[in-house]
């Protein structure tokens, strides 16, 4: 038997499981009544702690929480009505295209011509502006070089 008693952590560990003790400490415990009392006290403490009544709220926590959850977005009452409206709209578009399709195509063709010309002129103006800017920058650099 070792002269000194088991340290506190070993006493606590032994109270949980004797198998956790190194053999020398286990041998000491086997022979030492005082350490056995300490272990027994810890064991009793653990058992009593595990048996303490758990705290409880004096209301139904589950019901309270569920009552506060944000509600999911409500589904439309007549989902089939939405489908019907969508089908009607699609039908109107198809009929309109069949009846007025030719005239519509001609109108769009004219519109595309005007749009194309407008875009071309715009691009030419931008290009010309860029060229003038480059020429102006070049001339300024030449002037600075001439006086340096």
């Amino acid at each position, binding site marked *: 038997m070792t002269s000194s008693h088991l*340290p506190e952590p070993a006493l606590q560990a032994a109270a949980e499981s004797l198998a956790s003790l190194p053999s020398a400490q286990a041998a000491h415990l086997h022979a030492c009544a*005082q*350490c056995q009392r300490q272990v027994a006290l810890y064991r009793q*403490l653990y058992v009593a*702690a595990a048996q*303490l009544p758990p705290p409880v709220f004096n209301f139904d*926590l589950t019901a309270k929480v*569920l009552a506060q959850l944000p509600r*999911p977005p409500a589904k439309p009452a007549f989902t089939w009505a939405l489908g019907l409206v969508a089908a009607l709209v699609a039908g109107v578009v198809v009929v309109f295209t069949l009846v007025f399709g030719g005239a519509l195509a001609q109108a769009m063709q004219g519109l595309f011509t005007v749009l194309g010309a407008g875009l071309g002129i715009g691009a030419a103006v931008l290009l010309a502006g860029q060229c003038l800017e480059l020429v102006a920058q070049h001339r300024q650099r030449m002037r600075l070089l001439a006086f340096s």
Partner: protein
Amino acid sequence: MSSPPASLLTDQQLVAQILGGNAAAFGQVVRRTEGLVTQMVFKMIRHPADRPDLAQEIYLKAYKNLAGFKFQAKLSTWVGQIAYNTCLHYLEKKQLVLLDPTEATADEDAPNYRAAPTHLASTDADPEAALFGRDLADILGAAIEQLPPLYRTLVSLYHQQELSYEEIAQITSLPDGTVKNYLFRARKQLKLHLLARYQRADL
């Protein structure tokens, strides 16, 4: 085919049901974790009037953040983390301390093992037998209430909720070693408290 009752669903199935729009399934999450959350709220928060609101806030946070739960831990551990952090935030807001720094460093023999206290070594009385006949639960309950909030929480998580050191470490974000060390100190304080009661009663 009918789906299994909510109490039999795995964490994954339960979360999938809730995210799929079945908010009522969240009731099962509350029922599964109510013991843990209530225990934590009661141990960390001294002011009884604040506990119900905090408990509900914990679950509302869990519900809102459920889509972010990645199943890296058990669902109960994740809810426990939310409970711990919510209570911690409450304590910070109220400028209350979870563990006095002097408490955390005061002890003693946690890093280095030491023999039992000499006054215990010299007694021939059997404290176990002496305490056995008394209302140990009452004495212990009162002793636990006198511990710092963090120690109270750790003792209840380990000894009452029967969580492992690893699960407690996950919930509290404390290192495993720190959890063990704090639990060691808490138990030792409880033992000394019980012995002091025994010796007082014996006079």
